[in-house]
């Protein structure tokens, strides 16, 4: 039963993974793509292997990661409206990105990472550390403090961003606004690899605690009684979710709704056993973001829409449908 469900989601994931690289403004010849692997350099193969494939991979990883973090955080905070960005990490990230966009002297490059990514990562990591130190207590994390501190830091970052917007030149503002819309368009394998050292430990921590999260969803005191090390689990889920979010947001910007809608859709379709919800959210989230990105790069071809617009416009109505349908969130 469980294996079947996961297989079903895996098939959707694989289908999107296999189909989306072929979708885009330029039509691609299958034969040329295959020849490209054998050493025949041609534009079709170049676009397919060096633009489309890494882009689809990033979409799958980023969408999956965001949905997974959302699913875990909704249990950790016992709140159905929490998503990866509720904790203000996108605020910190955006502030970091805007700083380096509007102040050219901050421009640095490190390996495959651009200045914007480095600063975005630094901003979200700083937020993560700050929130964690604020909510840390001897008897465990104060979850409400965590949530409130996160939301407050988000607001502070928005204030700082408004100030920067007021002071910056229009070019920087346009660049920043484009970043805020979220996108997985500027991407090569180098950036993809640079994501891994943070992303995979984060994802691993979350998956590892799937069963523990079931017990925590039931009741923290019961979980303790059952033998779950609640304090450690909560800390690990927070840190795992934080690392994953920081890695993703620094590369693709704040892509909304995936982290909120996908976990709720999965719970509606397949129940609320976290051992199913977490992997299935990852698979469906990845498929959804990669699919939205395929729409984003074709719908207004040859121009590209930022994928954040598609996820919000498609995701928003879907979420409202979930709210008004009989399903209890």
């Amino acid at each position, binding site marked *: 039963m469980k294996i079947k469900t996961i297989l079903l989601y895996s098939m959707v994931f694989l289908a999107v993974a296999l189909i989306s690289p072929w979708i885009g403004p330029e039509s691609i010849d299958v034969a040329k793509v295959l020849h490209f692997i054998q050493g025949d350099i041609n534009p079709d193969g170049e676009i397919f292997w060096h633009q489309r494939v890494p882009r689809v991979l990033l979409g799958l990883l980023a969408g999956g990661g965001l949905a997974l973090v959302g699913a875990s955080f909704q*249990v950790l905070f*016992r709140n159905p409206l929490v998503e990866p960005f509720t904790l203000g990490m996108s605020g910190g990230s955006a502030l970091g990105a805007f700083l380096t966009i509007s102040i050219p002297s901050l421009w640095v490059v490190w390996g495959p990472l651009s200045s914007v990514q480095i600063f975005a990562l630094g901003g979200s990591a700083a937020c993560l550390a700050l929130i964690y130190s604020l909510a840390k207590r001897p*008897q465990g994390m104060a979850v409400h403090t965590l949530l409130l501190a996160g939301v407050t830091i988000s607001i502070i970052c928005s204030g700082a961003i408004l100030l920067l917007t007021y002071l910056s030149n229009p070019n920087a503002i346009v660049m920043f606004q484009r970043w805020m819309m979220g996108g997985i368009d500027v991407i090569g394998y180098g950036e993809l690899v640079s994501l891994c050292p943070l992303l995979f430990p984060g994802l691993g921590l979350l998956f590892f605690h*799937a*069963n523990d999260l*079931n*017990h925590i*969803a*039931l*009741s923290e*005191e*019961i979980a*303790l*009684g*059952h*033998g*779950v*090390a*609640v304090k450690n689990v909560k800390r690990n889920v927070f840190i795992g979710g934080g690392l994953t979010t920081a890695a993703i947001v620094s590369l693709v910007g704040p892509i909304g709704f995936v982290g909120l809608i996908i976990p709720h859709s999965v*719970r509606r379709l397949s129940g*609320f*056993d976290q*051992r199913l919800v977490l992997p299935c959210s990852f698979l469906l989230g990845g498929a959804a973001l990669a699919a939205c990105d395929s729409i984003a790069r074709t719908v207004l071809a040859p121009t590209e829409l930022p994928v954040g617009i598609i996820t919000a416009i498609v995701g928003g109505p879907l979420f409202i449908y979930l709210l008004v349908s009989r399903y*209890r969130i």
Partner: protein
Amino acid sequence: MNKPGKIIIELNNIYHRFPGSDWELNISEFTLSSRKVLGIIGPNGSGKSTLLRIAAGVLEPLRGAIRLENQELQNLDRLTIARHMGYLPQEVASLYDFTVEDVVRMGRYAHTKGFGSLDHSDLDAVRYSLEITEMDTLRKRPLSHLSGGERKRAFLASVLAQQPKILLLDEPTSALDIHYQVQFFRLLRILAKKGMGVAVVTHDINFASLFSDGLMFLVEGRCIATGPPKHVLTGETMHLVYGKDILMGQHPESDRPYILPRIFTEKKE
């Protein structure tokens, strides 16, 4: 009822105060032995639940020593504690609508490896717990479709599936009707006979008196009397704590005391 048991959990010189409150808990000694049912009684706010939460390691007291089978509780990890001790809190507000069976299966956490997949002995324990709590016919029901009493029994089954040596139960019968209350306390006796030590916090002085080997009577964070029911539930203590509005009697089937309300405030000679 009088076979001597081995002390499994022992609390000494417990002191606790919640931040921003002047209420204090002061318990010099609390022990729970195998083969015994210990009833913890007392009026509202007497510290019954707080004491139980401290014994369960859910709440850390400001001062005091807790020893579980001669080991400091704070040095044990939760898994080890869970294999020795089952704890049933008073209120359970679940985030999701798990079924009875889900909840009972989760009780096996301390005995399973790897994402809670259950083997034969686990499933046997689950089946046994469902049967002994008379929940096996309701196993597929979600929590939201249960009455208050059925919920209590579902969570008790979950704790029993844990197969602990001692059980700490906080108001397990508060929502049960009298049939299940009797069943429940009889079940506690059966478990004690099989070797378990049971501490049960309850408002129901009569059930505590009839089914416990020992009672602990808490008032305002202190233990004012402890021992066999007939030594604890004396007319003097009861009147001191609950005023003159109760009558004491003796249960027809045993020498155990019970209480009844008075109808009239003034006793006419």
